[in-house]
């Protein structure tokens, strides 16, 4: 399939195509910078490709090359299932034409490349730093930037410009009827109130910041800012071996660490073409779904707290505690699990795991039942949630949404069904979808997803058969002890794995799975050494949050809070 996509692109773009490849089944095409915009537009509009979802924009630095940077646009088509990457090479300081006029999701993604690599994008509407702070000098992901060189920030950034604050009414219009007000035109600007939310605010659940211009209680205009939890996952990963990165993946979406663990090892195993034994696969599916349940418990619980329904939070958190008990016995940690390994798992399940898990899942189901009964037809909740923060299918796709938030609009895109991995095709489950894409639908979608996940976990438990949990592949798995002691090959193998780590063959690839918030992707570039050359995470909530200011425009402040809770923005994953 990817071959054909490449042919289409090559015949349209012609001599500007520098190189094509279909490594690991993804079409990847390199074009000259001048032809980039044309190529992207073709990929989006051509009926045979129709890449309507721009997943990510990725930068890679090759300091020894004259055209130092790779800028890669990674796309997917929801209708044809095609995955295409368009790549271009630019020298330091050479501008790339923006794609933010084609997809809204390109806006923030390009800002990130600009921030971390210093690649300028021409005609970009808002080219500012995004993850590092405004006083930061240099570009952090360039290979020559030392990892430990921190830079102090002394003054928090102002988001709204003086211009925007002073001329708000003229710029953005007015919402309230002021026909009977006796004010002079010049005085009107003082009617607009600037309100700053975050980055330390209970409703932002982490470190986000929104500055809004209010007319009464209505948001006229707002700007959001992220990066307050930028912990440099990507720089750290270039500094560690492949296995050492697993603990860092816990802390991406820390509410569903298990799901991330699984996503990361799947991506690396895809690069190395490693098969894991059946028991390992089943356990991975099981824990990934546990992670999803735990995520949705927190998300729905806190969303309801924000709307004022505190009780539900206690119900859900108690259910979560029951799951914590199982998870803690399984891997020794409640939250930051690090349970998977490349080629296997940290350790096998403990004895009595299934009974305990069934008991805990019973408690979870009980809690979900109680909460559903409390909110589903609750008048106050419906008034606060129905029609709030709604988005259409086209807009959601254009903004790069995936996961439960996209499904709440009615698009049934779920990686587990669309491109099954790890044996998901053999499980029986449904993809719940909503209709209106509002807060109400998002909550109900997540609740239904929890039921589906419980179903998958039960099926996985029924299938568990004794067997090995580690792949036999000696490139990733330690040889058994008696081989190490009694044969030179075994000893060498052991020595190399310990001292040099796993060696992923040189090349690039994109591994993706269904995270709790949507498509969780890892774009990996390896140079064949023991450390990754580049890992780019495709965090599902990054594009979702980039649309927030559009979602809340014209809504009340309290609706903005309800919307934010329903999007499930996890700062660890958003800022990495």
């Amino acid at each position, binding site marked *: 399939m990817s071959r054909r996509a490449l042919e289409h692109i090559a015949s349209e773009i012609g001599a500007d195509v520098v190189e094509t490849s279909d490594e690991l089944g993804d079409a990847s095409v390199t074009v000259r910078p001048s032809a980039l915009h044309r190529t992207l537009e073709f990929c989006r509009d051509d009926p045979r490709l129709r890449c309507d979802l721009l997943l990510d924009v990725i930068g890679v630095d090759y300091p020894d090359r004259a055209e130092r940077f790779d800028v890669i646009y990674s796309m997917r088509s929801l209708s044809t299932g095609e995955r295409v990457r368009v790549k271009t090479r630019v020298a330091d300081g050479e501008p790339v034409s923006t794609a933010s006029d084609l997809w809204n999701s390109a806006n923030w993604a390009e800002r990130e490349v600009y921030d971390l690599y210093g690649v300028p994008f021409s005609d970009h509407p808002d080219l500012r730093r995004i*993850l*590092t*702070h405004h006083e*930061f000098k240099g570009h*952090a992901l360039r290979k020559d*930037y*030392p*990892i*430990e*060189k*921190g*830079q*102090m*920030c*002394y*003054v*928090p950034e102002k988001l709204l410009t003086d211009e925007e604050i002073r001329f708000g009414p003229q710029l953005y219009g007015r919402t309230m009827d002021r026909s009977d007000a006796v004010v002079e035109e010049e005085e009107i600007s003082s009617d607009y109130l600037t309100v700053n939310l975050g*980055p*330390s*605010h*209970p409703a932002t*659940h*982490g*470190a986000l910041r929104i500055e809004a211009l209010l007319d009464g209680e209505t948001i006229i205009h707002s700007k959001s800012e992220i*990066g*307050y*939890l*930028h*912990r*440099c996952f990507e*720089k*750290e990963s270039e500094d560690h071996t492949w296995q050492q990165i697993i*603990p860092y993946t*816990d*802390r991406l979406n*820390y*509410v569903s660490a298990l799901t991330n663990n699984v996503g990361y090892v799947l991506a690396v195993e895809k690069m190395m073409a490693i098969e894991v034994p059946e028991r390992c696969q089943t356990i991975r599916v099981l824990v990934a779904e546990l992670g999803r349940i735990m995520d949705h418990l*927190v998300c729905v619980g806190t969303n309801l707290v924000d709307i004022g329904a505190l009780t539900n*939070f*206690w119900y859900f*958190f*108690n259910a*979560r*505690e029951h799951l*914590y008990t199982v998870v803690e016995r399984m891997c020794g940690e*409640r*939250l*930051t699990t690090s349970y998977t390994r490349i080629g296997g798992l940290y350790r096998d399940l403990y004895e009595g795991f299934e009974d305990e898990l069934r008991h805990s899942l019973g408690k979870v189901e009980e809690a979900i039942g109680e909460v559903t009964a409390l909110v589903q037809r609750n008048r106050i909740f419906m008034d606060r949630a129905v029609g709030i923060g709604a988005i259409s299918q086209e807009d959601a796709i254009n903004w790069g949404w995936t996961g439960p938030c996209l499904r709440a609009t009615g698009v049934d895109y779920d990686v587990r069904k669309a491109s099954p991995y790890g044996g998901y095709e053999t499980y029986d489950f449904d993809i719940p979808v909503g209709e209106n894409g509002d807060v109400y639908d998002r909550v109900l979608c997540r609740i239904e997803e929890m039921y589906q996940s419980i179903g998958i976990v039960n099926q996985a438990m029924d299938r568990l058969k004794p067997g090995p949990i580690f792949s036999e592949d000696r490139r990733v798995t330690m040889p058994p002890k008696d081989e190490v002691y009694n044969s030179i090959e075994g000893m060498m193998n052991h020595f190399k794995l310990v001292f040099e780590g796993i060696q992923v063959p040189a090349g690039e690839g994109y591994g993706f799975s269904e995270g709790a918030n949507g498509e969780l992707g890892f774009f990996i570039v390896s140079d064949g050494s023991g450390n990754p050359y580049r890992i780019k995470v495709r965090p599902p909530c990054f594009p979702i949050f980039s649309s927030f200011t559009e979602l809340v425009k014209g809504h009340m402040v309290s609706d903005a809070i309800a919307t934010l809770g329903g999007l499930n923005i996890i*700062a*660890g994953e958003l*800022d990495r």
Partner: protein
Amino acid sequence: MGVTLDEPQNYITTKLRQAVNWGRKYSLWPMPFGTACCAIEFMGVVSSFTDISRFGAELVRFSPRQSDLLIVAGTISYKQAPILKLVYEQMAEPKWVIAMGVCASSGGFYNNYGTVQGIDTLIPTDMYVAGCPPTPENLLHALVQLQEQIDREGIEAVKEKRRVPSSA
């Protein structure tokens, strides 16, 4: 009403310092400065399994003006640093700070261009809680230790200004 102050059995004598500290230590109002994973574990501490209200510290306030215990739960990035300082300065005396988790205590396993290497480079810190994230019991232990520390402190309205490290 029943209590008359002339009756000798209605008096207790104590030291003023002890009486004040007794009040202070059992009515800490925490403000969680939650930024990351540790904040999720903090939610666990306040919810009913471990229930922080057994120690008189359940009145979680999200306004620094109304609280006297700052619990920094999570990684502090350089971008967040000026905000943490601002929040600390907005709190009224007397005030205490708990660094929850290794990130807040020392930067944890993030030693890179984005992460502050411990909040004590920014604000004075009373308690450090180990763990990534600390278990709820671990945080409660820190709370109890802080209460013991408060018990030993003087009652001057404004605590002696501790020096903030000059790098901040």
